[in-house]
């Protein structure tokens, strides 16, 4: 089977509440979008947005069929010395925009939690993207238009098994575990 690839048009809109070492980022944030380790593109540097930068930068990339994740890394470059620090990153599973609720070629607005290299929460990134590709990637949810009856499984499409662990003490109120 030949490896076809699809075209991903992703516009990095903005980010919120970025911090480095617990202090808000002052300037020079930019985002690197990676489809795989060889295939990445960066947005322009946002000079004055501080910890709420907005880029509205559209990047067009090829996305091979077997891609599982798209990675967004928010980085901050320090002045003229050229050094850059990773503020946070988010991994978007391809299943979030393929085969979900939105039909093919539809412009989708998505937002993701950024986590810093230590794994702690560090802001939110907002993007909108459109995937141009093969017709058979139609929304699997919309295609099963047989009817809405009893017992539709909630997450039948999540067969790529993306799992995010959340430490049990950091979010679940105790009484919600016992019902």
């Amino acid at each position: 089977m030949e490896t076809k690839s699809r075209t991903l048009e992703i516009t990095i809109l903005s980010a919120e509440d970025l911090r480095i070492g617990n202090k808000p980022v002052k300037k020079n944030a930019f985002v690197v979008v990676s489809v795989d380790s060889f295939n990445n593109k960066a947005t322009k540097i946002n000079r004055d947005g501080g910890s709420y930068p907005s880029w509205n930068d559209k990047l067009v990339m090829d996305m091979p069929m077997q891609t599982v994740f798209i990675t967004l890394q928010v980085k901050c470059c320090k002045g003229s010395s050229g050094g850059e620090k990773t503020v946070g990153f988010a991994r978007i599973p391809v299943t979030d925009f393929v085969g979900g609720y939105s039909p093919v070629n539809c412009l989708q607005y998505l937002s993701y939690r950024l986590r810093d290299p230590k794994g702690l929460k560090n802001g939110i990134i907002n993007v909108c993207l459109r995937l141009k590709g093969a017709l058979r990637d139609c929304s699997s949810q919309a295609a099963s238009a047989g009817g809405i009856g009893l017992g539709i499984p909630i997450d039948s499409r999540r067969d790529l098994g993306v799992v995010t662990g959340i430490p049990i003490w950091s979010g679940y109120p105790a009484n919600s575990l016992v019902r």
Partner: protein
Amino acid sequence: MGNCCSDAGGRMAAVGGTAATDDQNNAVDMYLKSRGVHGIFCQIELSFCATDLQDRDELSKSDPMLVVYIKERDGSVTEVFRTEVVLNSFNPSWITKYTITYHFEAVQSLLFHVFDVDTQFQNVEVKMLKLEEQQFLGEASCALSEVVTKPNKSLTLDLVRKVESASSTHSQHHGKLTVHAEECFSSKTTAEMTLSCLDLESKDLFSKKIPFLVISKLAESGISIPVCKTEVLKNDHNPTWKPMFLNIQQVGSKDSPLVIECFNFNSNGKHDLIGKVQKSLADLEKLHSGKEGENLFLPTLVGRDYENKILKSKLFVDKFSETIQHTFLDYLAGGFELNFMVAIDFTASNGNPRLPDSLHYIDPSGRQNAYQKAIYEVGEVLQFYDTDKCFPAWGFGARPIDGPVSHCFNLNGSRNNCMVEGIRGIMMTYTSALFNVSLAGPTLFGHVINNAALIASQSLANEARKYFVLLIMTDGVVTDLQETKDALVQASDLPLSILIVGVGGADFKEMEILDADKGERLESSTGQVASRDIVQFVPFRDVQGGEISVVQALLAEIPTQFLTYMRSRHIKPCS
């Protein structure tokens, strides 16, 4: 959808003007909001014409006049408007128009009476005419939403007159009345401007430059009324401020004189005026195209008089563009619909429906229970915005007669079809479902939300111009909070709004987490964050006195959510 917060706190943020997603006169909006009146306010002008008015008097034509009444919920009728009298016509087109404020969240019932004004009153002023002395030609009634949802905003009604004869009372048709609605906006155009200054002077060399601009319009009396101000920039002699959006209606017209003042921010509130210019929006547009700057001037005291001292500081217009902001009614006229969906909690915590203390008790005397009240309040407003008046209706948390507990079953009892007809259909299937299922539990929203999202997604795939409103009514706190959040996050990019109404006396504090107005953006278990806030939650309370009901307040937010969705995706009313 990720609207960034200003990073300038302490009253240094930009104020006023019109935000990119707002099309109302902000001052009026804020005045009304501060008094608890919410929602999209639109002034609508109704114009009327009639055809085929029967002539009562064989010898001469009628001199018709139209009287408009408003029908309140309790049935009382108040006269609000009279047109002029048109002489000698069977097909009058009245010129005087009636201005009414459109409230999305209420059903505004109008009643029309057409009278033939007797010739002896020809010279009497319209408002002095006594209606009982005129000849009644016919009546018609409708809801204001029926008029505005018609494609050309014109609704034609049959005029009827009840005739009492010996055997029966029947209505005869006596012509037709056409009601036409127009929005009163002098202009829907919004101007976006980016302003900057060069070489700001200062009183002394060492003072910091913390400049900001205030744009005011000049009223006829010469007083200047502030319209908007920019954010405060720090330490900048050549500041460029963020783009400002001004609705041309806010300032009057494109040629209305505006005063743009540049102040130096002072934390004690007494800002120093650095300089000002007086330009209209049209002048600013010329400055932009000519790429010229305008010198600021400063009124300085020379002797006893103020002279305008021209400064070397210049104001530049870096960007100037105009866009048309479509209103909610524009989208309706373009064929967009609001589709209503309802899901009812059938968990055991409601209590046995046959006992009077149950939240599901159907009172034989006709008094509605909380579920019926809320469905009726939301449904009777939304039904006008749905052309086929067929609504999906579900129940959750119960065991249908031949099955395990279902967290999303069709109220009409069918296996494949979830639709019911009209509000009556919802009420009837609700009552019959009550006695055909056994209440169980737990309270899970995930299935219902996913079904609603599926419907919205199918409609999106068919490019239908629909926006969906799901009403979930529950008596208890949701059990699957994380799964509900996951379902909501996945559905946040769809044309869907979810209203959650809590009935009964439970403590709904945990449910407020779902409403991003009261907390943070929803986050799923996979790290995805909701791109829009699509949920609103309110605990149901009975209306006290004349105040607006909590459900109506929820409904009032829907046009705003609709517009935010359409505008952010650049979807125009007509394609």
